[in-house]
């Protein structure tokens, strides 16, 4: 009988595939849009080029030296960083105009008198104007500038007497003969400092960095913004798709087929179970499409497919349970539809599906989010993929989701029986 019930649902979906096709295509479209927005087919997510302006109002040999360092094509390039910087030398006016026109992520200003004050050991300040229309790229420039100023500060504090000598040399049209002894002196100082600087006693290692002998066995990965968002989108879409699948119970009520079923000698459980299994299978298919499309079309790598699969199946069970309860609780489809949408949106948003949890208030993060199954799924899945979390982290979360789903299904069956006993659907 269970097979007959399941076959019936598949046959009905096959004869009227449009709602399912739309719901299965929608996540594909969204995944595509997100994918293109975050750089298309990058194997791992990379920030596109960061274009910023250097405004040298000091225009001395020191500032030229400084900007020269910044202006060597791709700062760092393959030497230190994978961040592709694209500085351009501009006057303040054109720089600000381009900033307003969103052509630049930031403007770095070396103010007049910078070299003189620096060499005198006075406090100096580099100017930074960030593009308010961007968030990540100006922050990267700010961080880079922070590192640069820390270096300059260290230089000023450790080589203060030499800097005064250097100033004389530099202000005297850079007589290289005078500079020679200074360079020799600088070399001696650096040699004496070598034992303090090299090798560094404190370092850091990226998790999963196999090349440097990362200790997580290749699990997890560097952060991938597209993959991060895709997991949240999947959680959201599964909620909506679950609503479509279990909302079919409303149509069974309208068609009177559920009432007819109740006139038979069989219990309600197989009917509900078949509907839940059917919807669960569709949810898993949807998850495969969403996550698979990210992998196939945009090069997202899922590092722990087994863990992600188990978590997703458990989450699908939770979604099916939740949506069955909503139908049992609100038999009127017209009332149930907006409530179902609202529940899906709130659970998705509050569970961190649409944006990073860190953006939410602290109280919410500490007291509300831990109660939300959407958060259990997204946070665990992200930890699995980007934190290298092992079975000790994902297995309890999957169990928790599956148990909640089962409890919700039991509640739904009880609600249905109570409704029927009262004659609500007869």
């Amino acid at each position, binding site marked *: *009988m269970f097979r*007959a*019930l399941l076959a*019936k649902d598949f*046959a*009905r979906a096959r*004869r*009227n595939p449009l709602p399912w096709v739309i719901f299965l295509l929608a996540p594909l479209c969204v995944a595509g849009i997100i994918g293109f927005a975050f750089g298309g087919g990058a194997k791992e997510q990379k920030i596109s080029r960061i274009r910023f302006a250097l405004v040298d109002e000091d225009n001395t040999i020191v500032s030229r030296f400084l900007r020269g360092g910044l202006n060597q094509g791709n700062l760092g390039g393959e030497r230190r960083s994978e961040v592709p910087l694209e500085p351009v030398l501009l006057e303040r006016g054109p720089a600000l105009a381009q900033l307003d026109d969103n052509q630049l992520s930031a403007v770095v200003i070396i103010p007049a008198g910078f070299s003189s004050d620096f060499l005198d050991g006075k406090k100096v300040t580099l100017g930074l104007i960030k593009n308010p229309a961007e968030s990540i790229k100006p922050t990267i420039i700010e961080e880079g500038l922070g590192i640069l100023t820390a270096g300059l500060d260290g230089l000023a504090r450790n080589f203060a007497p030499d800097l005064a000598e250097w100033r004389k040399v530099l202000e005297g049209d850079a007589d290289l003969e005078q500079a020679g002894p200074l360079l020799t002196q600088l070399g001696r100082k650096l040699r004496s400092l070598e034992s303090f600087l090299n090798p560094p006693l404190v370092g850091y290692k990226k998790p999963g960095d196999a090349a440097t002998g990362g200790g997580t066995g290749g699990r997890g990965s560097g952060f991938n913004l597209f993959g991060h968002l895709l997991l949240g989108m999947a959680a959201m879409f599964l909620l909506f798709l679950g609503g479509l699948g279990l909302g079919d119970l409303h149509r069974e009520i309208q*068609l*009177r*087929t559920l*009432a*007819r*079923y*109740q*006139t*038979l*000698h*069989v219990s309600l459980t197989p009917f509900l179970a078949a509907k839940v299994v059917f919807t669960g299978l569709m949810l898993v298919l949807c998850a495969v499409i969403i996550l698979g499309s990210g992998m196939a079309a945009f090069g997202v790598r899922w590092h722990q497919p087994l863990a992600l699969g188990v978590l997703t199946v458990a989450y699908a069970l939770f979604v099916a349970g939740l949506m069955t309860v909503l139908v049992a609780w609100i038999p009127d489809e017209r009332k149930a539809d907006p409530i179902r949408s609202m529940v899906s949106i709130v659970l998705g948003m509050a569970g961190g599906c649409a944006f990073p949890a860190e953006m939410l208030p602290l109280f919410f993060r500490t007291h509300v989010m831990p109660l939300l199954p959407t958060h259990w799924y997204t946070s665990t899945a992200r930890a699995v993929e980007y934190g290298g979390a092992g079975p000790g982290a994902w297995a309890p979360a999957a169990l928790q989701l599956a148990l909640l789903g089962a409890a919700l299904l039991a509640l739904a069956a009880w609600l249905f029986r109570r409704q*029927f*006993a*009262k*004659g609500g*659907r*007869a």
Partner: protein
Amino acid sequence: MTSVLSTPPGAAGSIAAMSPLLQVDHLSKAYGPVRAVEDISFAVRPGEIYGLLGPNGAGKTTTISMICGLLQPDGGRIAVAGQALAADPQAAKRLMGVVPQELALYEELSAAENLEFWGRLAGLDRRTARARTAEMLAALTLSDRAKDPVKTFSGGMKRRVNLGCALLHRPRLILLDEPTVGIDPQARLNILEFVHGLRADGVGVLYTTHYLEEAEALCDRIGIVDHGRMHAEGTLRELQDRLGDQGIFVLEGAWAGAQPDTWPGLREHYRVLSHTDRQLVVAALSERDPADCLRELLALPVRAENVTLKRPSLNDVFLQLTGRNLRE
């Protein structure tokens, strides 16, 4: 159409002598202050078609819903094949086939798929369900449309599929809730013929309707219900005899504004069943010679242009019992 139920006809002895397949005693159900069913009792025996006749809202569907377990009665007892429904509803439901008043079909599926699906849920294995589906489609004259989606069917064809879905497992007791509502006369005739064939197979049929002609033509016994109460039951003849066995008189004339109640002698000897500006229908209160009645009626203070003596119809009985016309 031919019957497809293979249960041997319960022709041995009279129907009345058989123990009932369905026994309903003092059944009651209220929705808040509205008493939908009030103290209804009747029985359906094997090979019998029992009709519950009443207008919309009379309590027919509520009664059937309680019998098939969709509703809990507030009071009373239902027994199926001698076993109380409340004691073992699943066992009772195994014996039943329920045809709901509203279509309960999957419109995307074909007629054959619907029949087979409901047959399998009723307990048939796939092979048997498939074989009986073919038989049922032939019996319902739908074989040529077997693979078409039900949504492409006419109302009458859908009604036939709706009927067939309840019969595939060959139930002993069939509950038909207004199975001919909203279909054309030809389709209705097809269904009536089919149901008539069920009686020959020895099953008990409970048939609710608000069509007088259906009850008259199809049912062995009829219960007249209105406002949740059973007003009378019996065979068509027994019900007609409640109005006297010499028939009723229909007087036609022009007596606008006249008050029959004030006419001397009328109320003493006749029951006024109905009256309009053009027509007066009466039945003699006691057994009288029709010729004497005719003379008395022609002597009334208003002039009748035409007087007809006829056998009372079920509608006349309904009118007499409930004070209102079933056709209204």
